[in-house]
């Protein structure tokens, strides 16, 4: 790779894209082969075509509300806001801040696991965001 990838504390420059990023890039973008090929296109079943997350949903809203409530508990029982903010700057509170937004990210992985493990599922159902309990799925092969 010819690009100088200077080490940085601030900017994350992964050497290869993560799966979530790959999905964003290659499922919706790029040239659509159907535009060019009519006769000899082979319709092949795609596991991933509906592996998307719907975010503007009641589930997401409730997660926000829960997350904002957890902020309060921490303030009341431990220490005041300024100390917490200091902690966050130092990364000390990182492990405590797993909440609503993490849940959203996690659901992508779950969708993928499900797609891998359960080929028969209806696309409509795959578009639902996952609730916090992980659905059972087969162990990954390999």
């Amino acid at each position, binding site marked *: *790779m*010819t690009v100088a990838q200077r080490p*940085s504390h*601030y*900017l*994350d*420059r*992964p050497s*290869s*894209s993560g*799966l979530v*990023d*790959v*999905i*964003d*890039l*290659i*499922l919706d*973008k*790029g*040239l*659509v*082969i*159907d535009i*060019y*090929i*009519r006769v*000899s*296109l*082979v*319709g*092949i079943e*795609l*596991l*991933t075509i509906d592996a998307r*997350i719907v*975010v*503007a949903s009641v589930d*997401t*809203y*409730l*997660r*926000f*509300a829960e*997350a*904002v*409530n957890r*902020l*309060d508990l921490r303030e009341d029982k431990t220490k005041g*806001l300024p100390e917490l*903010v200091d902690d*966050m*700057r130092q990364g000390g*509170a990182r492990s405590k*801040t797993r909440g609503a*937004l*993490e849940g959203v*990210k996690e659901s992508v992985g779950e969708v993928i696991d499900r*797609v*891998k493990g359960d080929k028969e599922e209806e696309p409509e159902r795959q578009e639902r965001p996952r609730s916090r309990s992980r659905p059972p799925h087969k162990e990954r092969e390999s």
Partner: protein
Amino acid sequence: MNGRGTPTEERACYVYGIVPTGVDPSGLEGIGDPPARVGLVPHRGLAALVSAVVVNGPLGTAADLRAHARVLDTLVAHGPVLPMRFGGVVRDLGAVVDELLAPHEDAFLRALEDLRGTAQFTLRGAYEEEHVLRQVLADREDIARLHTDVAALPQEATYYERVRLGEMIALEIAARREADTLEALERLAPLAVAVKASPSADAPADRAVSASFLVGKGDWDAFGTAAEGLARRWAGRVGLRLLGPLAPYDFAGDAVEARRTEGAGRPWG
């Protein structure tokens, strides 16, 4: 991959993208398990990047998705690439030439020339949850008030209030997303040949920015430095990630469309 004209019944031709001739795909691992060898189907100045695929098995495992992107992103460091969307399968090698390359030869060649010397960089930013929620409560009195009301009551009694609270927070974050996206574009777009910002409507809840930039090779370093500057400025508030150099996933469609349309020039200035 067998020689052309000898596809077996259950095999077909997976298409990754289109490149100018002269590209060497040897050593690239394609989709499938074990990974298929990636080969070229040449036609005049063009070649399609292909590999054999079994028709009666589904496509799209995590390894397949990664392989598709890896093939294209590896090649863009050496020259222009037109990436196909994941999942394009054609009956055989002859059809790749007759239906894909030959009829659109001119548009593909000219689009590849337009893209020569560039690659895509994609910037993704995610809000630090705790920080952004505290900011929202501090800046929006109405949200802070509803939040206090909800917190004072048992959870079962506040379902609709909690939905409303979460919705208000989501809308406020969406407004911040617009402003932050604008700032990112102001800082980075001057270094790019073309820009595409993802629509805010389908953004994940924690997204601060998502935009793709087509950047000329001479500006790759400067672009990285500018993105680094933005990340430093947003430190603690937004976690920023820069992907690239990537194949021009966000720009290839426009590049080809512009050249398919009679009389149109390059799709960007």
